[in-house]
């Protein structure tokens, strides 16, 4: 299984992914073997069913949304490049990256890109605003069935009220960033991949 994985992934591809996402060689190969183990159909791409087969994801309240985040707009399959691109958001931010060429595009795991990823999980219709309904949906998923709609509604109202600075009763991306400025996003949204 391991040897098959390394022959299917060409060196140039690894280099490209490395440049795009910043992962190291060993991380990429490791994640590639994970990718192939999930890929039951063995066609080099993952479908939604492949993800749903992961047992812990089924009990995760945000499971469906996370799965959707991997698939680009309107598509049903994700290849390894797309897989890595999404996972790159969760790479820990390293100090030496901050000194890189400022004209180069922002790395995928920068603080604002991490926040944008989280924001997009709330904002399903991609209108760059979290509306009250979208917030309610997420709250409902996280809180379970015991709480009445009214209670949830008032929590949602309160949340929006706290965050909303321009009075449109929606949370824009800027307001989202502002509300989370005290939260240590670099640590909260990073997974320690093996070096």
């Amino acid at each position, binding site marked *: 299984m391991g040897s098959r994985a390394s022959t299917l992934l060409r060196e140039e591809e690894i280099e490209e992914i490395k440049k795009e996402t910043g992962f190291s060689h060993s991380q990429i190969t490791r*994640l590639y073997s*994970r990718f192939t*183990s*999930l890929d039951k159909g063995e066609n080099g791409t993952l479908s939604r069913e492949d*993800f749903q087969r*992961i047992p*812990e*994801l089924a*009990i*995760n*309240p*945000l*499971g469906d949304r*996370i799965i959707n985040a991997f698939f680009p707009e309107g598509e049903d399959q994700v290849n390894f490049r797309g897989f890595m691109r999404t*996972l790159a958001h*969760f790479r*820990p931010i390293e*100090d030496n990256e901050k000194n890189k060429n400022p004209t180069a595009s922002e790395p995928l795991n920068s603080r604002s890109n991490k926040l944008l990823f*989280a924001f997009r*999980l*709330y904002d399903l219709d991609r209108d760059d605003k979290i509306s009250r309904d979208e917030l309610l949906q*997420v*709250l409902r998923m*996280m*809180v*379970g069935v*015991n*709480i*009445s709609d*009214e*209670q949830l509604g*008032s*929590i949602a*109202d*309160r*949340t929006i*009220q*706290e*965050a909303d600075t321009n009075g449109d009763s929606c949370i824009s991306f800027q307001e989202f960033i502002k*509300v*989370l400025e*005290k*939260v*240590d996003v*670099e*640590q*909260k*949204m*990073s*997974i*320690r*991949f093996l070096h």
Partner: protein
Amino acid sequence: MMAKMRFVRRVSSLPEFGLLLLVIFVLLEGSLLPLGAASSTSKSCEEAKQGHTEVHNFTKKAFPVLGVDYGHIKNPFEISLWVLLACLMKLGFHLIPRLSSIVPESCLLIVVGLLVGGLIKLAREEVPPVLDSKFFFLYLLPPIILDAGYFLPIRPFMENLGTILMFAVIGTLWNAFFIGGLLYGICQISNSDLTAIGILPCLLFGSIISAVDPVAVLAVFEEIHINELLHILVFGESLLNDAVTVVLYHLFEEFSVDGSVTVLDGILGVISFLVVALGGVLFGAMYGFLAALTSRFTSHTRVIEPLFAFLYSYMAYLSAEVFHLSGIMALIACGAVMRPYIEANISHKSHTTIKYFLKMLSSVSETLIFIFLGVATVDGRHSWNWIFVTMSVVLCLVARVIGVVGLTFIINKFRIVKLTTKDQFIIAYGGLRGAIAFSLGFLLKEDHFHMRDMFLTAIITVIFFTVFVQGMTIKPLVELLAVKKKQEAKRSINEEIHTQFLDHLLTGIEDICGHYGHHHWKDKLNRFNKKYVKKFLIVSERSKEPQLIAFYHKMEMKQAIQLVESGGGSKLPSAVPSTVSMQNIQPKNPPATTKPAERVLPQLSKGREEEIRKILRSNLQRTRQRLHSYNRHTLVADPYEDGFSDLILKKQRMMAIDKKVHNPR
């Protein structure tokens, strides 16, 4: 004009003057009464004897209208006097604002202790054994540790647990061996009578002096309001190194008597460390669960609820000490384990009682400890040896710096958020030693350790150096280095929601990667907790409440209380037409057994909730959040301090609007 100003100034200093008089009075009382007692006890003895002879001789004596019997109440009186003195000192410091901002309270208290010790020595030549190690470890230390453990911020603690353990265990070991070893070498090199000190007593000394002290750290760090990460790192280290200290101390103490250490002893030492640490935690967790379980059944006897929290924790400490396990870790574990369940079960008032009582006890304890440290310094027999004492101070500093730098180098390879040089400096500089080191030194038996006095002198010097020099300079240094300060933690509901959201997200991503990391296990633990533990330990109606809702309720409750207390809210300009009809508001039927005096129930009927929410929604000015305060002086943002004036303004405005509404013109 000038006369008026002078008069005003004198008047403003009057309360301080009065306080000074009060303190002097108390001191006089404390020193004179015992002197009077010495003579009165003999008198009462004679009287008793006379009384007996009287019975036989039937000679009538006048009935004593007023008598003095000091010996009867001597001990409680002295204790109360000390506590009173400590509290008056605390009051005094805060009346002099400039002083308390430059000099940390701990330093002032030690100075006071020195003065008082000096006074007592002049007056009586016999200082009561105040810093008796037993008294210290059994009565003074537990409240502080319980306070720390109960209010320990679990999340940052767990997230940094690896780092904290590294510093606590390996850092302390490094310190102990480095200091002990080098001191031995120096003693051998020096040509004085220091050469008589063996390697084992030196190592023992090293292990006593190497541990960072939680009391001192708490006292200093609370005043500098440093950011949460550094605070929890240094503080966590000071708490967890107790296990190491206990093992090393007993190890070297035993073997100093025997005279040799073998490899087997070393291995036994390691095993002993694991037993001490894990055993302590286990004891604490056990008692914590018992406390949580007990609190489930206290709905009918709310008055004694806080007592359970204190008693179980104290028993955990004592039980751990019976087996020479780490009592500190037992206390921390007990407090941390029982807190979420107890808070879900007990009434709002009991919760406040626990909080205030803990803060009060720990505050008094801390004050007493520092005063006694000063007194014991004056009283103790000292044996000053330039080389030994100065080298201990120097070596302490050097060992700490090397230890921190070295460990950070290793730790940073595993951390997501690396520790910067500034962080390392603060961690190294914040390694204060305190009363625990002194008490451990005090416990050394004189006959086994003939250099005990010199050790004590050295320990006291190190403590003074760290508390005075490092304690006083750390605040300006923090400013100078522009270290990140503690954010006034207004934990908004946004942060709460989004943090939970991110937790779920990260757990999902970890599962996709097949990576059993931090989040995975935390999620598993939470699930287990929700499914089994909560049902067992929390009163049935509240066990199903999701964390978000509980948080939200708490916040609203607090705001509602504050709003009602400030007097607003009864008459509302209804800008928003009320959609809730009055029929929906049904008063909850209080269960017959609940006392009617119990006002605030965390659980409200739907109608009542709506009312509160309506009030808040239209009245929300500034969200007052729960302060995660590490500061012992302020627990909750006092609504009467800040914002009271604008609350009054708002009320006036509301009444004006009301008038307008009722008299449309």
